[in-house]
């Protein structure tokens, strides 16, 4: 299957230098751009988290005023969600989907270029609000009216950057769907696709379904603010709660958009290092599809305290609890895959195992808050903050690190420094727990989220959390060093890289040729 090493040369007239990146339509170049962008945003959003943790290190106001603090929590979330995690997964999809399904490139390469190059502009517009009169958006990433309508000059820029990010995501999703549906190698039926491809296919459908809903919601905010409509203004016959319904109809699938590709990554990595087939491939596919379906019918569990009718609360409680079933199937499958395997613990496997344990802890707290009568206590406290950081940081972000270490040798042709990689994992795993575990206690003890100052009973756990946060943040610089070192050189990677690796991408040389598969491989 190494026919891919030869390719005709007249496609190779791409510009060099900076313009290569501006005009590129190549899935690997675009994947790299996405990943670099995501990493840069990860550090910008991370710097904001450091400001938050510094202010919360002790009671009293030391560093920032409360309005700026609110801007930090708002911008941190927006940047991490739309700037770091989502683009990182799109970057992984760009790099991997064509190589995994035996295609030369993505189906719509020019749109691919455009969907990336919208991002830096949207990102700059969003970051630019920090310097505007009235300050950056400070109403939370959920942008609930009426509060969000008190935003200063930043308001229209916030809305337009959200529109742009949405357009970019939708184009990326269309591209991924078209590629997967049309460009699979002969013999690769749907049920033979690698799980990363499956999870991304489902994720792409979620994106197409909900990003327009989000765009609609923020557009209504825009017209409420500037054109006298009253969609969300009770005094004009509107309903502020309706915004929350629309937002979370987007928002809940959105959080699965950030976790389903992570499931895919982990389902690729665990079988490789356990040297054993994934226990239940088809049940994994069905579980992913079930989770995606359920994500559309549970949105109001984010809004249990808005005064839903009893029947509504009961329905959303039951529906939300159901998510535990397919999620459980996934976790049980990963564990069964490890069972009686022949495991080794290279960095990608460590991050994948860290993912399984810590994501499951986040899942447990998720199940707890599905129970409506207790969620009345948990809602809007640090318990929630702990929950979603467990699933997003030690979940999604860990899976992105796992993916980076797993495929970096394939992408660059060089092995990364295993010792440093392991060090990165252990420091991250320890500090992420010091950072987020005490937040469970803070929430249960009664600390609301999004407050810049707190009563003295919460001091100790906030200090632990802050120190864990600073250490976790510093640790991530190590990752940058490891990646740069790997790109620059290192021991040469083989085609297969990992002893237990399976899949078409491992049949290509490391690094793979510019056009992944110019002749489609045959899948049996």
């Amino acid at each position, binding site marked *: 299957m190494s026919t891919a090493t030869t390719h005709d040369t007249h496609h190779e007239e791409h510009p060099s230098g900076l313009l290569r990146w501006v005009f590129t339509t190549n899935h690997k170049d675009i994947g790299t751009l996405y990943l670099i962008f995501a990493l840069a945003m990860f550090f910008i959003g991370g710097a904001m988290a450091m400001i938050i943790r510094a202010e919360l290190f002790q009671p009293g106001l030391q560093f920032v005023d409360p309005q700026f603090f609110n801007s930090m929590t708002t911008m941190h979330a927006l940047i991490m969600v739309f700037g770091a995690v989502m683009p990182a997964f799109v970057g992984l999809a760009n790099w991997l989907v064509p190589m995994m399904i035996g295609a030369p490139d993505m189906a719509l390469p020019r749109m691919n270029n455009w969907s990336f190059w919208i991002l830096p502009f949207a990102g700059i517009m969003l970051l630019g609000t920090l310097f505007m009169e009235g300050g950056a958006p400070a109403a939370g990433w959920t942008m*609930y009216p009426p509060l969000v309508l008190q935003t200063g000059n930043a308001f229209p820029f916030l809305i337009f950057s959200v529109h742009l990010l949405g357009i970019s995501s939708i184009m990326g999703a269309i591209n991924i769907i078209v590629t997967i549906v049309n460009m699979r190698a002969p013999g690769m039926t749907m049920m033979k696709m690698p799980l990363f491809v499956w999870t991304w296919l489902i994720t792409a459908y979620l994106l197409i379904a909900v990003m327009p809903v989000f765009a609609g919601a923020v557009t209504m905010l825009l017209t409420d603010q500037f054109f006298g409509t009253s969609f969300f203004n009770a005094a004009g016959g509107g309903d502020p709660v309706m915004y929350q319904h629309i937002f979370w109809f987007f928002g809940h699938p959105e959080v699965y958009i950030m976790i389903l590709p992570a499931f895919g990554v982990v389902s690729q990595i665990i079988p490789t290092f356990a040297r054993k087939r994934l226990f239940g491939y088809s049940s994994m596919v069905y579980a992913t599809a079930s989770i995606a379906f359920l994500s559309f019918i549970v949105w109001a569990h984010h809004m249990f305290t808005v005064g839903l009718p009893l029947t509504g609360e009961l329905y959303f409680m039951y529906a939300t609890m159901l998510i535990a079933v397919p999620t459980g199937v996934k976790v049980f499958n990963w564990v069964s895959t490890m069972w009686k395997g022949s495991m080794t613990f290279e960095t990608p496997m460590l991050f994948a195992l860290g993912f399984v344990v810590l994501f499951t802890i986040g899942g447990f707290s998720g199940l707890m808050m599905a129970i409506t009568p207790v969620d009345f206590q948990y809602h809007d406290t640090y318990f929630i903050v702990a929950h979603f950081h467990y699933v997003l940081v030690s979940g999604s972000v860990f899976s992105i690190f796992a993916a980076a270490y797993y495929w970096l040798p394939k992408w660059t042709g060089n092995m990364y420094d295993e010792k440093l990689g392991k060090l990165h994992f252990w420091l991250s795993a320890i500090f992420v727990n010091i950072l987020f575990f005490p937040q469970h206690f803070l929430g249960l003890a009664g600390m609301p989220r999004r407050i810049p100052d707190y009563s003295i009973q919460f001091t100790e756990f906030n200090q632990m959390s802050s120190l864990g946060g600073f250490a976790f943040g510093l640790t991530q610089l190590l990752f940058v060093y490891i990646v740069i070192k790997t790109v620059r050189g290192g021991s040469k990677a083989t085609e297969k890289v990992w002893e237990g690796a399976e899949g078409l991408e491992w049949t290509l040389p490391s690094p793979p040729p510019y056009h992944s598969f110019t002749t489609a491989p045959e899948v049996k």
Partner: protein
Amino acid sequence: MLVSNVKRWLTALAGLALSVSTGGAAAEWGLNLRRGVTPISQQAYDLHMLILWICVAIGVVVFGAMFISIIKHRKSKGAKPATFHESTTVEIIWTIVPFLILIGMAIPATKALIAMENTSNPDLTIKVTGYQWKWGYDYLDDGVSFMSTLTTPKEQILDQQEKGENYLLEVDNPVVIPVNKKVRLLITANDVIHAWWVPDFGMKKDAIPGFVNDMWIKADTEGTYRGQCAELCGKDHGFMPIVVEVKNEADYQQWLVAQKAAMEADAAGADREWSMAELMERGEKVYNTNCLACHQANGEGVPGAFPGLKGSALTTGPANAHLQIVMDGKPGTAMAAFGGQLSDIDLAAVVTFERNSWGNDLGDLVQPSEVKAAR
């Protein structure tokens, strides 16, 4: 400082270890949900503990299997990979069993929820209104109403003074409710969405402008209970606490009588002529609790966010226009309409104060009777 911090840390860690070993000490150390003092909070606590232990049990099984596998089935120990995969039976089992566990959780949760949402037949109804950034309370049966604002001094927040025991959890006018009576709260807001939450009462509810939500409390123990706004509501979201005093029936009635007397005195005062000194003194107090958060102590506001009042066109222009803005607010900004929140005396006092402070010296004063006429 460092030593004391280390000590407090060790205490917290000891509490952590203790709670793991005994499970009982958790509440004292602020690790766990509070059991609280209402039937609702106790049901929520019991459910919380039930689900927590179920999760712990599932965690032990799943992580146990995983760690056994990590320890035993590793290549370095010569483990050879097995080849089994796909088992419909196993898949069905691990779909059905969690489903049954979920049903086991859903039954008590449903019962609790139905009880919590039953706000019928209250002994007493209080309307709670969220404002940026304070709470207003109206006792609908007795005609008592008042505002409740943070009393923690700015110096404590800015680290210029030792922080008190109830730092950020203290107010000027606490809500008072009788013990063992079903109190129904009607919750709404005036500007943006807030949420009323006292952990010991086991429930929080959003306060939404234009809508009225309700919840109920039946506290079984006298005492003072503290909570906070739980929905991001702007700059001073972290500075609008809730304090509830649960009193026995006699004390509650006594408090009610005193409140009514104070309100009557206020109403009577609105008709008389006030002197400059009186208005300035009262105006400063009103300013500090209502205006200072945005317009600042020096009246200079926050450039770009909140306009200054020192030497501004409004505060040095006609008094009527000034009063009108204070009463009606400024739509589309954080400037609330204070007409419904403050009494005639307070409005007259604060406008007078603003016109004669920080170098503003118009010398004119607004009488409560003028406010009454302007309404």
